[in-house]
């Protein structure tokens, strides 16, 4: 059992790993052969050095960004769910607000981030606010779909048994919306990290205590390109960690929920 699962993991990991090593080799080779200046494109060795030399700072920055993203994401989960429930309970609210929910999804949030910072202020609150706004709509839209797309036979089953509006919401609509709520969460968790980093571009904490977004701006300004690469690497890793955690949770809940996926 264990041996086969290890073999399976090795089989599925081998191709992407080979490709990764290949890319590293090409990267390294190009930098060396063409003699590219390190302030334009540092080789993989320099990036690894930069990670090693700045590890405590990178970790601290990643922790702070993770907190901002987590704050925005959790807030978006709670508010998004609440808004979707309101939509499902009132045709008038849904009809008048839903088009704007869709419309707001197409507004580049990055463009209004400076405005948010002016209103909310610098520091963690500004970062959380940007992260929150960018991750809100996928949750609203997906959850609203799950709450309203109920098979007619199930609604009739509830009606035949004299179910109240409240019972139908609690025992039918909300459980039915769980898979689509989780889909929304999966989309949003990646966005929340992007939101936190963008938020830090504008609402960074200052030189004392800073996140990855601030570090990106700082290293760019100081043309510490290898350090910038290391920061980008950490940002990507943070996004992946978020996505991995939510996907894992998603799978865990869904297998219990309806046995598929």
């Amino acid at each position: 059992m264990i041996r086969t699962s290890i073999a399976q993991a090795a089989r599925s990991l081998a191709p992407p790993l080979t490709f990764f090593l290949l890319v590293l080799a090409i990267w390294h080779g190009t930098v060396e052969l063409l003699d590219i200046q390190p302030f334009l494109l540092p080789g993989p060795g320099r990036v690894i050095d930069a990670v090693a030399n700045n590890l405590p700072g990178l970790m601290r920055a990643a922790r702070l960004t993770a907190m901002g993203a987590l704050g925005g994401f959790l807030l978006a989960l709670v508010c998004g769910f609440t808004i979707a429930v309101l939509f499902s309970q009132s045709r008038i609210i849904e009809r008048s607000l839903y088009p704007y929910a869709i419309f707001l999804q197409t507004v580049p949030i990055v463009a209004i981030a400076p405005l948010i910072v002016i209103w909310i202020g610098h520091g963690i609150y500004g970062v959380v606010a940007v992260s929150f706004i960018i991750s809100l709509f996928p949750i609203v839209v997906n959850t609203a779909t799950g709450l309203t797309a109920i098979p007619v036979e199930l609604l009739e089953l509830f009606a035949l048994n004299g179910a109240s509006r409240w019972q139908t919401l609690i025992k039918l609509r909300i459980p039915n919306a769980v898979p689509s709520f989780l889909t929304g969460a999966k989309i949003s968790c990646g966005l929340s990290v992007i939101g936190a980093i963008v938020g830090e571009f504008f609402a960074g904490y200052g030189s004392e205590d800073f996140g990855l977004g601030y570090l990106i701006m700082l290293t760019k300004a100081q043309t510490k390109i290898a350090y910038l690469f290391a920061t980008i690497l950490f940002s990507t890793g943070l996004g992946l960690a978020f996505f991995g955690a939510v996907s894992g949770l998603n799978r865990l809940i869904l297998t219990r929920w309806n046995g598929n996926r």
Partner: protein
Amino acid sequence: MIRCQDIGVCFKDGTQALSGLNLDVDEHEFVAIVGPSGCGKSTLLRLVAGLETPSTGKLSVNCDETAQQLPSAGARLAYVLQDPTLLPWRHAEANVALPLELRGGFSSQEVKQRVLDALDMVGLQGFERSFPHQLSGGMRMRASIARALALSPDLLLMDEPFGALDELSRMRLNEELLGLWERDRWTCLFVTHSVQEAVFLSHRVLVMSARPGRILASFEVPFEFPRSPALRAEQRFVEFAADVSGQLEG
């Protein structure tokens, strides 16, 4: 128990589903309805359940001694469809408990007892904690029937409940359904495509016309209860079913 007088149903899109339909069903009677596809059989059941309202005519359904008009909270009516309509996130026991939960007025102990009894009746003991996706099609149907029976219904409406099952499961479930009926003798309206099934189960087989649906013919089934599976092979059963089929085609 059910009285339909000159019932007509016309949908919003102008389709005349039923017209001039008369029907009386007595208490404890098992009535099967057969007819061509789209003849309004399901509409008739939905009408009795209170999910549709008649455009013309009069309908009355009395579900218990207080003679309540449907749909009302006190009415003990259960509806079984071809699709078992189980909630995928509830295990069998919780699915069967759903109507009792929604209607309220049962103590949690009573709910538990009724649910276990109902699961027992349909042969699902040991599967209380199984989720619908872990059950076979036949078992899901049994769970759906258990959900109806847990209410101790006065009136059971069944709309092609075994239509999606293979022939073997269908025959077994027919026999079990008869056993359950003999135990509790709920009134039953049973819609089916299968004349065999209709004749095997019921006191009376109604043949409906093509749309707009009305009752073309009514056959009193002459076979006494309890009926055994062997009845299906008997000459008189085959001949009687052929008679009904003849009316259906004509």
